[in-house]
């Protein structure tokens, strides 16, 4: 039932609204509201109960194994959350005087420094509010760089077919044409194909490494050389940084600019779809273009760098300085992990992924890249099962839900048919991986002996499989008060 269906005219959580002394509202009639809005009319208990009950209908890290590839669903430390929610942080106005802001600013500054070190970049701006905005900022800086040099003919960004959808979309938002490059059979970019694609029109390339195929492109230095020699720049999509924390740095691979996903690598909670945070780091030559504001340290005190300090900046991407609360969480997380912890994150994420990959292969599943080591994630393709048993990746995904495990990412990357992109992360215990393997084997059995059980899954959740076609065709996007 919707909260509106529990509402009654006149009902309210009276405690939460201020008392109103009857003051005159001296606003012209034609600027005043005359109709009611459909907000709930509920008691405080009804609201608490309704949303508590709703929450229980979610899978989440706190309740389930959630091996959603590319999303790095690892433990979101409660200690970090609690500290970031301290009243002094929550009550700080974004435009508060610097004198009363040194605590927050110092955290942001230190995080900038740490992220620069982790990525092998010169400078970091924290302001982008998610990975996609980081990508936008990065490509916008590439554009600003070329424009600054009057190198105006460059109008293409190269993007692998395996790339996340945000990459081409971000490139287009920056006014570029997108050229897609296919992935080689080994999961690497084919250098000859790449050579044939680049030219004076090449503004740059967007890459993830390890890629969303779960493999590390060994030719990355050669790729960088080809792009740089063609006059382009390299953008690094940092969504997979968890795989290589402290092992290899995008800057050393030859990248000029990258974004981080603080809500992945740095364990800030995903919140059912956000907020995230997508800081960007750049090499020296892109530094002038970084988005503002940033934090600088002068004589032991911190202040904002704004467009005035950075005249070539691509500008401002939000009203204030991005998702400050997420920045704070990432800072705290980094201080907890420390140097050793960062190494460990990559190591155990990789250990878990390779263990799972090997065990699933042994159990008869087909790997997309059987010859390759997994990075922090890997791909199983169910193309064979779809053909022979009529059970698709989607079916297996839904059936996993019945066993109390969130499904891996399905049908991404697009180039692998019927794929499951599986990322266990470093915070899951071996027993949980073993349980996942057991149920994958069980589902494979079911697919052979009782395929309908799988193709009609889920069976144990509050609802059965949803009709997405109806959802798109008969659009129902708001509750109709008449009902």
């Amino acid at each position, binding site marked *: 039932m919707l909260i509106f269906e529990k509402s009654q005219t006149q009902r309210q959580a009276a405690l939460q609204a201020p008392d109103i002394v009857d003051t005159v509202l001296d606003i012209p009639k034609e600027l005043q509201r005359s109709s009611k809005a459909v907000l709930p009319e509920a008691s405080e208990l009804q609201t608490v109960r309704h949303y508590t009950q709703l929450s229980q209908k979610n899978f989440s890290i706190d309740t389930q194994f959630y091996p959603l590839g590319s999303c790095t669903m690892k433990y979101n430390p409660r200690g970090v959350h609690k500290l970031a929610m301290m009243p002094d942080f929550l009550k700080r106005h974004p435009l508060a005087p610097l004198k009363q802001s040194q605590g927050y600013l110092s955290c942001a500054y230190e995080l900038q420094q740490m992220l620069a070190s982790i990525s092998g970049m010169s400078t970091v701006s924290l302001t982008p509010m998610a990975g996609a*905005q980081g990508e936008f900022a990065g490509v916008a800086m590439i554009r600003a760089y070329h424009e600054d040099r009057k190198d105006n003919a460059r109008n293409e960004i190269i993007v692998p077919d395996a790339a996340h959808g945000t990459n081409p979309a971000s490139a287009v938002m920056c006014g570029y044409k997108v050229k897609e490059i296919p992935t080689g059979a080994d999961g690497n970019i084919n250098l000859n194909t790449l050579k044939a694609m680049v030219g004076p029109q090449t503004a740059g390339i967007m890459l993830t490494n390890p890629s969303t195929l779960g493999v*590390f492109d060994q030719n990355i230095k050669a790729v960088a050389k080809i792009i740089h020699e063609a006059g382009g720049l390299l953008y690094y999509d940092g969504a997979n940084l968890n795989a290589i924390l402290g092992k290899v740095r995008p800057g050393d691979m030859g990248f000029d600019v990258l974004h981080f996903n603080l809500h992945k690598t740095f364990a800030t909670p995903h919140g059912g779809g956000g907020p995230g945070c997508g800081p960007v780091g750049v090499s020296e030559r892109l530094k002038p273009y970084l988005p503002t504001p940033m934090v600088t340290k002068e004589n032991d005190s911190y202040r904002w760098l704004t467009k005035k300090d950075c005249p070539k900046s691509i500008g401002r991407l939000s009203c204030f300085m991005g998702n400050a609360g997420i920045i704070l969480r990432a800072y705290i997380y980094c201080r907890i992990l420390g140097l050793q912890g960062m190494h460990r994150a990559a190591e155990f994420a990789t250990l878990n992924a390779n263990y799972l990959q090997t065990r699933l292969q042994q159990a008869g599943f087909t790997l997309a890249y059987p010859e390759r080591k997994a990075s922090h994630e890997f791909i199983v393709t169910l193309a064979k099962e779809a053909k022979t048993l009529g059970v698709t990746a989607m079916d297996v995904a839904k059936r996993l839900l019945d066993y109390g495990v969130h499904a891996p990412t399905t049908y991404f990357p697009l180039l692998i048919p019927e794929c499951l992109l599986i990322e266990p992360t470093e915070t899951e215990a071996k027993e949980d991986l073993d349980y996942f393997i057991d149920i994958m084997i069980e589902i494979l059995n079911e697919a052979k002996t009782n395929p309908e059980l799988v193709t009609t899954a889920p069976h144990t959740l509050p609802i059965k499989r949803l009709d997405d076609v109806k959802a798109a065709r008969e659009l129902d*996007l708001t509750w109709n008060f008449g009902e």
Partner: protein
Amino acid sequence: MPYIPHTDNDIKNMLAVIGADSINDLFNEIPAELRIDTLKNIPDGLGEMQTNQLMQEKASLDKRGLCFIGAGAYEHHIPAAVWEIAGRGEFMTAYTPYQAEASQGTLQLLYEYQTMIASLMGMEVSNASLYDGASALAEAVLMAVRANRKSKSKRILVAGSIHPHYLDTANAIVHAQGISIEVVPFCNTQGKVLVEAFATYENEDITAVVIPQPNFFGVLADVNQLTAWAHQHNALAIAVVNPTAVALLKEPGQWADGVDIVCGEGQPLGIPLSSGGPYFGFLCCKKTIVRQMPGRIIGRTVDSEGLTGYTLTLQAREQHIRRSKATSNICTNQGLAVTAATIYMSLLGFEGLKKVARACYANTHQLAALLTNIDGVTLMFQGHYFHEVLLQLPCDIDAVLDNLCEQGIQGGFNVSPYFPQLENALLVCATEVKTEKDLQHFANQLEFAIHQVA
């Protein structure tokens, strides 16, 4: 090992299964010359106890005083239940609801949110959030360019009385796509854009007009006339509004024949100030142009047995399906902030939200009365304002603010650097959280500060 569950035994067994000698071997596909052994400038890890101590020190540096700053972010009472519920693990540690059947909590909540915010704005549909108010404006502009098939110019007129950071953000995000944002000057005595100011564009191809209400100065403009002007000239009308204010002010869906797109900052709906984020941007529109909407949208549907359920819909607009042809690159949005806002709206209800708006209105008007009693302090503009007001002081604003800061008061926002024509201009705001005593205290201290500085 912090957060890592592996025992020595686990590691040994797992490596044996993989057939690797050591964890480091797992990285051997990375070219040796690229591999590093350590990172610079990363301090040693801390236990949770030490981290508490560290962060308490940091937080104590941000000890705030009485805050009279608004300028895009507002201090409101947030019912405890809001974050006690939003902070539940099941909401906070879930991903975007890709597996609908395992995400009905988040999905139903978002459907409820879409209903609430669309209704509040007087619009037909809403998406499930954008990053913040300023970037929402940028998306609204891009959306208008896609939606207005009658216009080819990609020229957007924006009222010069809009928050200057919104203008900067929109510019930064849209300019690479050949869109030009043109600023329509506001009247220097009334502090708002008059319809007369549009006269110069009378015969031009304009794609959209951006109308803030209340505007950056807190001033109320003649939004009906401005909307009508836009529509008469085949331009779309984009409203930028404060959701609290809209509880009392005419909803954009009712401005003249109704605006096409509404966007704004969702922060006032239960989101703490927290240094500027995470907040969320809201975006509503007419149903006719919903396919041009950026971001996630939740739809109601049924399951295989006919039971009601909720799911992500119209995904063909989005980057993960449509890639370079998507309506936007946005992927992760501000889900948890929207979760909080939904609970906030449920607790306040429309009547409650109206009371909040009235209390803000009353407090800011009373504050203005008290402050303009001080010698040399005057209202910068004539006309109606809502819960923010621009004052002119007889002396330098920064010096005054500095002085107030020492007294534990964050005395407003200095507007003059943004609008040099407005000299010694201080933007102040008093929401419902301020008491009579607070207002009087501010007035006393401001008088004192002006004396000291002037």
